[in-house]
């Protein structure tokens, strides 16, 4: 078989049985791989009402068709399930090399069902998968767990997916780590593993991936790499990596500062790309990526690959921790204990504002490093009152103390580091993403007019559809000039069969609509397509967008327009015509009448 391996690994933890089944080739045509294909498998495996942390929930992990080949930036691995943090369906993807390793070991993806009676890990070695006791790994951080899993399989070249204590404690913004500093970061992936008593997966694969015409394939890969990828639009990733966004967003006035009170950080030079370059020891790459956007840094004895932009802002500026060493230490603790730095940073900044405005005293203050670092361990281990409080995440923390006006989340997912009051497009993207406030579905920050709602609605819809297929191909966000023509060309030559851009465009729209149908069936309504109170009511301070809100009225206009452009009814439900057009009329068919 070309590009795909042709086999899925099925793991039933309840019966500790492992089996394989052929890849559903009838689904690959409509969903391609990674996000889309995982979503299709997931919708076939569970009812939308499923409790995310119950044994009935299922986790689908899927590679993309180009993963493990020389196509650059195409080896990301997707995880689809229902999020314990938001209750929505969600997708999270990870870079590094676990995805390719899984394909070399003989599997396109893994479906994980049930719950193990005692802690286990999954060991995959070239077509042989077994479940082993993880009793001795319990309580250990991700860094140590990965090392021990490599020893278990007897190869330092093995790749791991592992959880730390935060996930064992079912914290709903815990994550799964790999190769120390890469994560399935958002939505509580870690708690999903934790709820299944699955401490990790270790994989070693030495097999091969075939393409229809190697000579032609290599020629096309070189062409796109040299003439499209390695060009001005994308080279920021090689030179600077994501920290370049610190200056960009500050200039736009959309750089969250002091728990999203301000859009500009007057001390940004402490955390910007120049600061990272000054601390940099080397560049780090995901598998087959010539960009190497990861910047490995060290300040005093603290070293890490990163911090990335979201962490620099949400755990830096937004907590007024304008201190790179402190942010590196924060990042490293989160990466090892297993917490999403974005949700964790945002929840801590909320607790800081709650403390300083007298809502509740967590002994956390803006700019105060010691307690900020101390509380991370308390969250991950649930060892103090404030640790247990913050472990709920921003939405529940605010609800407990009546501070809903201060928390910044959509559908329970803490907001990324782009202020919607200074760019309405980001607000529309946050309000409509299937997993809550997310910047990886649409990213309209470079739009000509950040307050033109009609134009932004169209831009957001187009980006969501394009990313639907881009993430399903396993591509990384940072190939910014990628399009469905290029994707179709690479698939055609790799598979040896014609794939058109129009098919892929349609697949992207299909994936978006299927996620929407799932969420509606899971109980979400148009009322959930909203933004935090703070965004709608409290004017932003400082910077280019000072004085702005994204008002309820403007958001209502935007959502009406969004549903119309999508072909959904006024309640945000995909119309019967749209469902038939996308071939979704037979899926989840009993959900909506």
């Amino acid at each position, binding site marked *: 078989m070309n590009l795909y391996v042709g086999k899925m690994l099925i793991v039933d933890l309840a019966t500790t049985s492992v089996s394989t089944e052929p890849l559903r080739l009838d689904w690959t045509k409509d969903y391609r791989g990674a996000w889309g294909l995982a979503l299709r498998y997931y919708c076939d495996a569970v009812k939308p009402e499923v409790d995310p942390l119950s044994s009935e929930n299922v986790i689908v992990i899927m590679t993309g068709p180009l993963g493990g080949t020389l196509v650059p930036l195409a080896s990301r691995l997707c995880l689809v399930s229902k999020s314990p943090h938001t209750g929505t369906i969600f997708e999270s993807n990870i870079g590094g090399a676990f995805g390719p390793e899984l394909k070399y070991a003989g599997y396109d993806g893994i479906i994980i069902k049930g719950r193990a009676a005692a802690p286990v890990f999954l060991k995959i070695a070239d077509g042989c998968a077994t479940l082993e006791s993880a009793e001795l790994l319990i309580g250990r951080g991700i860094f140590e767990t990965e090392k021990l899993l490599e020893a278990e399989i007897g190869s330092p070249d093995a790749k791991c997916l592992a959880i730390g204590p935060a996930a064992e404690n079912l914290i709903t913004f815990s994550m799964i780590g790999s190769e120390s500093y890469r994560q399935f970061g958002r939505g509580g992936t870690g708690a999903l593993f934790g709820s299944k008593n699955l401490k990790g997966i270790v994989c070693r694969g030495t097999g091969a991936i075939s393409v229809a015409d190697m000579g032609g394939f290599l020629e096309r890969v070189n062409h796109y790499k040299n003439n499209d990828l390695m060009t001005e639009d994308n080279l920021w990733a090689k030179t600077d990596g994501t920290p370049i966004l610190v200056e960009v967003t500050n200039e736009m006035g959309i750089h969250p500062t002091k728990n999203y009170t301000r859009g500009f950080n007057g001390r940004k030079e402490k955390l910007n790309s120049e600061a990272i370059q000054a601390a940099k020891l080397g560049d780090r790459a995901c598998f087959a990526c010539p960009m*190497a956007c990861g910047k490995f840094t060290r300040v005093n004895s603290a070293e890490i690959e990163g911090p990335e932009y979201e962490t620099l802002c949400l755990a830096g500026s937004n907590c007024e921790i304008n201190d790179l060493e402190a942010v590196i230490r924060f990042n490293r603790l989160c990466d090892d204990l297993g917490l999403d730095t974005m949700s964790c940073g945002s929840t801590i900044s909320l607790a800081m504002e709650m403390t300083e405005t007298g809502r509740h005293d967590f002994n956390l203050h803006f700019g105060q490093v010691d307690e900020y670092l101390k509380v991370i361990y308390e969250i991950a281990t649930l060892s103090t009152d404030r640790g247990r409080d913050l472990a709920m995440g921003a939405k529940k923390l605010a609800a407990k103390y009546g501070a809903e006006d201060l928390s910044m989340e959509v559908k329970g997912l803490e907001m990324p580091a782009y202020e919607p009051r200074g760019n309405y497009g980001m607000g529309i993207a946050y309000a409509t993403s299937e997993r809550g406030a997310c910047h990886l579905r649409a990213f309209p920050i470079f739009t000509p007019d950040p307050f033109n709602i009609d134009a932004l609605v169209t831009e957001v819809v187009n980006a969501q559809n394009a990313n639907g297929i881009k993430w399903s191909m396993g591509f990384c966000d940072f190939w910014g000039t990628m399009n469905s023509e290029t994707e179709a060309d690479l698939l055609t030559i790799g598979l040896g069969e014609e794939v058109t851009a129009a098919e892929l465009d349609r697949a992207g729209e299909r994936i978006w609509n299927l996620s929407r149908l799932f969420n509606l069936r899971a109980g979400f309504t148009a009322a959930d397509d909203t933004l935090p109170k703070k965004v709608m009511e409290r004017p932003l301070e400082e910077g280019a967008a000072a004085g702005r809100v994204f008002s309820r009225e403007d958001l209502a206009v935007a959502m009406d327009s969004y549903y119309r452009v999508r072909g959904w009814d006024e309640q945000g439900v995909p119309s019967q015509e749209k469902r038939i057009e996308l071939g979704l009329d037979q899926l989840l068919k009993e959900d909506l009448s």
Partner: protein
Amino acid sequence: MKKQLFANPDNCTGCNRCTLVCAAIKEGVFQPDKGRLKINNFPLRGYSVPSICFQCPKANCLEACPTAALYRDSDGVVLVNQDLCTSCGACVSACTYGMVELDGNGTAFKCDLCGGDPACVKECPADALLFEPGDPELIRLRAAQMKCRTISGSPNDKRRAMAEIMMKKARA
């Protein structure tokens, strides 16, 4: 001066484009494990070390071969004549850098420098692999790497042993 292959781990990002292109050209598939060079990644310390064949002037692999399946061409490159290989594995044990291995059929395979135009070097995006006469600094670096010999263990163990020495020095 004659061109040689150099590996500069300080520049290596760990991307593995070199191993991918090597196996694609030599085997016709994407299979890093069959690359004629290897990348040792140390993600926690943010460091990667390429393992390359040095085409040793005094080549243990060549000397160990009982059937003269390994031989040196006029450019000094050590090559394998597959027709003469009896799969005895003596070359694999003899190489102290872990750079000769046996394929699925039991035949020895190793780096042949692509006939003087190595694909890995062209694919490397970070100048971690170089094919040139080499300045004094590169020649010193290569000499230091060649001093890291491991007598026993699997090829992977031997590669890893040298890589660990390089990594610990760089990340001290």
